């Protein structure tokens, strides 16, 4: 498998609405990536787009290893479940101390927990959207 040879790549956990946008942004910047996705239907869609995908649970170190976490430069943890994100961040930090970990959080209280677990950057969809709406309201 070619992904074993990947290095300095980005791992994207979860190909939902957030993950999809992360991938889009990475492609636009010409950055190599591997997606980890649990849903077989989504996996076949990703394969159709000819992206590299690991089918399985991102909270499992086995799947993170298969995605080449030891040699990756960053990971985007974008699962639609705060608990799973927290678990993935913990596992990822365990496997690679130098990895840049960016994660999504839905609830405010999970934010600190993610940081404690080893995340370097947190994004909250509601907060980000609210900021955009305020910006739009302040126009004119």
């Amino acid at each position, binding site marked *: 498998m070619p992904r074993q040879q990947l290095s300095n790549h980005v791992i994207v956990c979860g190909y939902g609405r957030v993950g999809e946008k*992360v991938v889009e942004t990475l492609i636009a910047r010409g950055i190599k990536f591997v997606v980890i996705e649990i849903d077989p239907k989504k996996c076949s869609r990703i394969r159709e787009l000819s992206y590299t995908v690991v089918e399985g649970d991102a909270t499992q170190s086995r799947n993170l290893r298969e995605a080449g976490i030891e040699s990756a430069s960053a990971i985007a943890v974008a699962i639609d479940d705060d608990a799973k994100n927290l678990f993935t961040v913990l596992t990822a930090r365990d496997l690679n101390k130098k990895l840049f970990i960016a994660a999504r959080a839905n609830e405010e209280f999970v934010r600190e927990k993610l940081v404690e677990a080893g995340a370097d950057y947190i994004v909250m969809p509601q907060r980000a*959207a609210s900021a955009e709406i305020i910006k739009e309201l302040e126009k004119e």
Partner: protein
Amino acid sequence: MPVVSQPENVTWWMIAILVIATIMIGIASIIIFTGVSKNVLDASYFTAAALLDASSLGSDVGISAHVQPFTGAFYAVMGTAVVDGLAKSVIVGFVLAEFISFITNIDVRAKFGLIMKKSEKNHIIVCGYSMLAERLCRDLADKKRRFVVIEKDPERANAVRDMGYDAINGDPTDKQALEEASISTAKAVVFATESDFINLLGVVTARHMNNRVKIITRAMEGSTVTKMHRGGANFCIVPEAVAGTELGSRIAGG
């Protein structure tokens, strides 16, 4: 049953306490301060007189003709005077108690809120108190922007009021609720529910009601964005897409 009779019990208790307190204070103050009499019975006479008929208690004993002048022989008419006095006290007490209960029963906040809403102008209407709306309301409050929330669920609407925000309990896709929120003078309407269908319906209704208002809506799926614009939205946002772009840029940049 006890729930129904409770307010009346309160009223009667108030009357009793008011009457007794007034008479006691009167008697006590006459004994202590005026020095006219150190006798409790005499003091009650002055109290009754002062409460009911006195026009100038201070000068001599200026009591109207209704009560006999203080000659010492007043005890003969005391029975009538006491009954007369009590009757008047009860009436005064009853009126007072009713007035107090009327005052306490006015929902000051609701009345005030209604006045506020009527005069609302250039405000922002937030439809649906979702997680996004929760965050948005906090940000708007921090920026001291005026806004009103329309929330369908009565309990959630109350929770919004408890946060200290203005809230209308109603369907944000319904004309009536939007009218109540003064959409005609609003600066913007934000649809923040977690249903694309409700948001789109709201966008169309709002656009129909006010052609100039800025309509911002959230979309759950990227595919609905164009529909929202066609429905009349000025700005459509998918929070997850914003978050994804932010995550991607952050990783790509650093």
